[in-house]
């Protein structure tokens, strides 16, 4: 009976609306993609055209010839993955106790996390530079991971707190009744049901690091330069290589598409906390 309901008029409307919304958001990206396969002379045509008159892979050829980009992709990927792991390892337990074991210190702690999210990042750049310099971590992957983690932890904390807020306290209590320690309850019972929230948080932590520009600019040099910096270099004082830049941007988006698809799989509905109560 349910199956039948799905193909009623509402279902069609929902599908159509979702399609329109998704496509209109995809359109600028598609335009970027179209630009990347135009020959150099056409990338900024007047008047503009959406589709390329001639398809050319010159922009991709130019980008792939540059030796800097593959290395930068590797750095970016390493930094983003490590940042995601470290941030989640730090933020998920903290968010859990901050919402499930509420007391004055945890509220203060959440507020402190908020403050760190609000500081204008330019004012964090130079102190971080000095800090990493004194630790000997300038232009190293661990150094940039630390910097990115400092930016990602507040976000991860806030997101995870919001998700944990929906977890009924009974879930932990039931687990403790069955002989789990607090930590075991957290790890074996709570975390598995939070997988959707963790996946979303991981995704945005990853993207925060992957797209980060200012810290990467200040804290790295040739050894660990990340992709956003290398791509920004196509915009030089002597002119913008827009064709090459769009091609680089398209390549840049591919790893994130893979990561997103993988993480999206984890965001599934149908958790029944109610069952625990019963």
């Amino acid at each position: 009976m349910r199956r039948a309901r799905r193909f009623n008029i509402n279902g069609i409307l929902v599908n159509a609306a979702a399609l329109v919304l998704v496509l209109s958001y995809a359109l600028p990206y598609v335009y970027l993609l179209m630009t990347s396969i135009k020959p150099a002379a056409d990338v900024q045509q007047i008047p503009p055209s959406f589709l390329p008159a001639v398809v050319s892979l010159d922009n991709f050829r130019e980008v792939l010839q540059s030796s800097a980009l593959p290395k930068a992709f590797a750095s970016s990927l390493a930094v983003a993955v490590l940042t995601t792991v470290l941030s989640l390892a730090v933020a998920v337990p903290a968010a859990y106790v901050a919402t499930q074991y509420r007391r004055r210190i945890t509220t203060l702690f959440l507020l402190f996390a908020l403050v760190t999210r609000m500081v204008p990042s330019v004012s964090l750049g130079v102190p971080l530079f000095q800090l990493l310099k004194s630790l000997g971590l300038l232009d190293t992957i661990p150094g940039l991971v630390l910097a990115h983690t400092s930016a990602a932890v507040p976000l991860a904390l806030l997101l995870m707190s919001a998700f944990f807020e929906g977890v009924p306290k009974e879930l932990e209590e039931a687990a403790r009744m069955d002989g789990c320690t607090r930590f075991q309850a957290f790890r074996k019972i709570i975390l598995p049901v939070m997988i959707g929230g963790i996946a979303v948080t991981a995704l945005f932590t990853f993207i925060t690091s992957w797209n980060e520009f200012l810290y990467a600019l200040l804290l790295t040099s040739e050894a660990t330069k990340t992709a956003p910096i290398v791509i920004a270099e196509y915009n030089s004082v002597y002119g913008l290589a827009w064709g090459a830049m769009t091609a680089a941007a398209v390549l840049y988006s591919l790893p994130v598409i893979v990561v997103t698809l993988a993480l999206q799989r984890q965001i599934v509905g149908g958790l029944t906390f109610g069952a625990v109560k019963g």
Partner: protein
Amino acid sequence: MSGEDRFVLCMLAPALAILGLLVAYPVGLLVFDSFFKVDTITPHIREWVGLKNYIDALTSKRVAESALRTIQYSVFALFFEFTFGFCAALLFSALPGRSRWHRTVFTLPLMVPPIVAGLLWRFLLVGNIGIFNYGLVYLGIITDPDAIAWLSDEDIVIYSVSFADIWLTTSFVALVSYAGLTNIPKDLLEAARIDGANALKRFWHVTLPLMRPVIAVIVIVRAVDAAKTFDLIWIQTQGGPNHASEVFSMNIYQRMVRFGDLGEASASGTLFLIVMMLLAAAAYWKIWRPAHA
């Protein structure tokens, strides 16, 4: 210390350590610098000026104007991001089957490097080459592609530059809301249905209250980020024409980095921090946990 307290502390400690080490010191420094006349590139030469930097910032017409523009920009961006994002999340969760591909395509904007996203929107909106207006002509909304000068009309530019922000971050709202929606126990909704509540009622009385913390976090995070945004705007207009798209954090950036006026910029930064704190606290108590208000 009870076992429970010890557990809380152990779970908090790593996060505290990271934030304490990497953020508390810079924040302290920001507040400290705000009481000095000091240049960004020579921080060891400083002169105590007390509250002068704050007085200068609070009485500057430029600062006041850019603060007002920050509000215009953030409210406009947040409104559309939230509306579109939340609707998208509701649609995705209403879709039969899993909406993995929908959601992934919807996240595409975030996969473009921000500098490219800024330039992309500049080139979409700017005259002569901007395809956006040609699209509007095609849809019959305007008759002439030169009809709207998005980036050079001083009256609308502060809103035009937010399109890029809206495009980039709607998917954040959508995905976080979607994850929140999937966490709502299905049996609660089912129980409401059995009690005879229609879809709207179920949404209002079951879904929305349970979504409060998620909505609060989205609003706080996005409002803070929108108010902090300046690089996207900088790439599109450099704050022009005639400062018409200059926001507060851009003003701070310019003073701190381009002009080297660390003291005054830090005072503005501290003021920014205080205002954001008050707003966030309000959002926390009003939306997140209204029961404790």
